[in-house]
């Protein structure tokens, strides 16, 4: 079923990255873009992946800032935790009370934390050459883009597999989901933990960038095992 979906035939991510590589000024970014990404025909089972999760002070990338970043490089077969990385950052903007309770990161922890600019080389090295996997790309993508833009004067957009949108395809856009909606049933939750529950994945303490990145990586493994296969080309999964 997923194979016959008529998606836009890849947004031309490899071409976009190659184009940016030639035009960006900052060496960090040209290095990042030059590494490119696997092509749309690469089977997911062969692609180097990296689960990415950021915790922020709010939802608006123009007003809020990144508090922490979790990166978990992995493949469809294994998620080696020793390669995971995690940073707590000094937010560019004020830490709000709600974000404190949500992410369990307090002002004192953040006080001595570095600015994103200080760790950006490490973050980009972790992302480089790998396909990012996130749950709800509309947070990670604009926040990374604007945070990098604020520090380096140039933005960063990259291809992402969004595990939430993979869930949405099944639970929001399928004929069955439309039928449910027509019956007036509440939509199935496609939040991270609710999605994991459906695949028998254990509950994790959410809202910690590292744990959520791991949770996202596991969710992708489960989604592919249940609904796709190791041979599914990236072009059908990324957005």
């Amino acid at each position, binding site marked *: 079923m997923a194979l016959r979906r008529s998606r836009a035939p890849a947004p031309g991510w490899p071409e976009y990255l190659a184009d940016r590589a030639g035009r960006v000024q900052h060496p960090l970014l040209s290095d990042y873009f030059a590494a490119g990404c696997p092509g749309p025909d690469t089977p997911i089972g062969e692609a180097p992946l990296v689960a990415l999760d950021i915790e922020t002070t709010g939802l608006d990338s123009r007003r809020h800032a990144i508090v922490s970043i979790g990166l978990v490089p*992995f493949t469809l077969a*294994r*998620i080696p*935790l020793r390669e995971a*990385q995690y940073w707590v950052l000094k937010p560019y903007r004020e830490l709000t009370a709600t974000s404190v309770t949500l992410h369990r990161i307090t002002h004192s922890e953040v006080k001595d934390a570095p600015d994103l600019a200080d760790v950006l080389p490490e973050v980009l090295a972790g992302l480089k050459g790998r396909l990012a996997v996130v749950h709800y790309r509309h947070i990670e993508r604009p926040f990374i883009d604007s945070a990098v833009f604020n520090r380096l004067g140039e933005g960063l957009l990259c291809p992402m597999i969004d595990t939430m949108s993979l869930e949405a395809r099944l639970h929001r856009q399928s004929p069955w989901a439309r039928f449910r909606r027509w019956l007036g049933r509440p939509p199935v939750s496609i939040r991270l933990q609710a999605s994991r529950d459906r695949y028998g994945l254990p509950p994790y*303490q959410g809202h910690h960038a*590292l744990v959520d990145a791991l949770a996202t990586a*596991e969710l992708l493994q489960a989604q592919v095992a249940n609904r796709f296969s190791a041979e599914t080309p990236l072009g059908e999964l990324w957005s």
Partner: protein
Amino acid sequence: MEVEWLEIRQHMGRFPPFEAFSDELLDEVAAQVEVAYYRADSDIFVSDQEIDVLGYVRSGAIEVRRRNGDLYDRLGEGDMFGHFSLLRRQRVRFPVRALEDSLIYFIPDAIFQRLCEEDEQFADFVEVERPRLETAVKHQKQQNDMMVTRVRKLLTRYPLMLEAATTLQEAAAQVTEFGASAVLVLDTPEEKARYVFRDSEERAWQVSGILTDSDFRSAVAKGQAPDTPIGDVVGPWLVAIQSDESVHEAMLTMLRNNIHHLPVMHRRGPVGIVHLSDIIRYETHSSLYLVSNIYSQSSAEGLARLAPDVKGTFVRMVEDGADSRMIGSALSTIARSFTRRLLELAEEELGPPPVEYCYMAMGSMARNEQTLVTDQDNALVLADDFDPERHDDYFLALAKRVSDGLAACGYAYCTGDIMATNPRWRQPLSVWKGYFRDWIQDPTPERLLHSSIFFDLDAVYGENSFVEQLQDLVASQAPQSKLFLAAMARNALNRTPPLGFFRTFVMEKDGKHNNSINLKRRGTAPLTDLIRVHALACGSRSQNSFERLSDIGHTRLLPDGVEEKLRHALEFLTLTRIHHQVIDIQTEGEPDNNIEPESISDSDRHTLKDAFQVLSNAQKFLKFRYPIPSASERRRR
């Protein structure tokens, strides 16, 4: 920034063997984990694949099968797999599949090997050196040593203490007011004083002696003035005991020194005084006390009133950390004492027996392996000058009194009617010898059943030599009859152990799940049956299973090391059964032989599984060891 996997560390820390790890070690292990998701019915390890990781089930369930497809194990959350192959540096021997959608944590071989080298408990758990079963039994023993009742358990309050300058009269008044019968006398510390402590105001004191009621009495008798300081009255030396000594030691100390009060010290400071009556009250629950109480009863009703004390004694022994043999033999001794006393009382009423007899016990009582849940198996062996016409009325009346009396004391009637009240089991010695010979030489299903009950036999009362002759007959004839041994061996395979546990279920070999398990029927009884067959084969005259195992160990009937394994399995299964009976009593239920998987700890589950495995292997060997003789072999006999 240092990455910390709290989520993973906390999960692993809940399950053995990781539960014994420090947080630092768990963090180290967690940081090396590799995670993978497996959909239900997908392969995790396939036969002959190279293996470089230990598997740990984070969620879901997996299934391990033998190469021939037989179920080997089902594992759930917190279980690990693959360590057998890792230890032996082999390829995968038993393939592993996901039974449900499962999340697996893989721990790299390098970490696994390091844990085996550095953590002895971990190594034991994965059976690097010693089998886990043996370790568990040893561990139980160690705990037992620590659980021996300490004398401090008897203390209820802090002792009364007075300065040496206090007058006799004042001291007597204080002792009365305090409701005590003794007082410790304090002095300013001398050099080298043995018992010195500081009070709440940091003043140092020396305990120089103890003054008891009898000291006051003798002071009065001697005509000492009421204003004599107690320091002048108190004896020259003080006998005391450390609080972590056993109650038994305290009792011996009192007997040796002929004293009734014993100060109890924690290091150099006093914490209390035990009186002889405290010890007697405590010992009331001992089996020794119960037995002497049984013999002092003058009626069957009096004996029946002691039934609750049997439970009390049982619980006390288990709490004191007795092993299965101590408990089994104490309960058997108690049951014997009830029986003997009932026989004595019956004889008092019915008059002396017209011919000599021996009252014999079978089953667990004969083996000295009784637990709380037991019924009576007994019989009467009469002298050969027994004349049914003239004498049987007497013995029927005798048998009935004893059976009824035992039932009133909590020993249920035998549902199979294996009791002396049944005329078939109230026969002269020559008839019994005939029974036994027939059962051995021509085993039928019914006779085999009798053999498995009656061939655990022991004299309880009367002319013991009758029963000894029967024991001799069995020991000399059973080893000769291959057909009998083969038939007994097959009979011993009727009851089999389960494979193990899976979540809150008992897992059977065919993969079915049950909610509870009768640990007697599925564990101790088939094990006892199996030991009996070997014991009969080697002509052992022992009745107790552990003693039988020792006899078997002197022969070449079993492969090396098997005797030890059977011993550990029997000990562990019996004690588990006993512990669950205590839990039943403490939760005010009727004790039974059933245990529910949810009430078994994680480590006990693993050990029980090992014990079941030992039993299962021994059963397989039994069939092979005692084959049915060919027809020509039978004719030769």
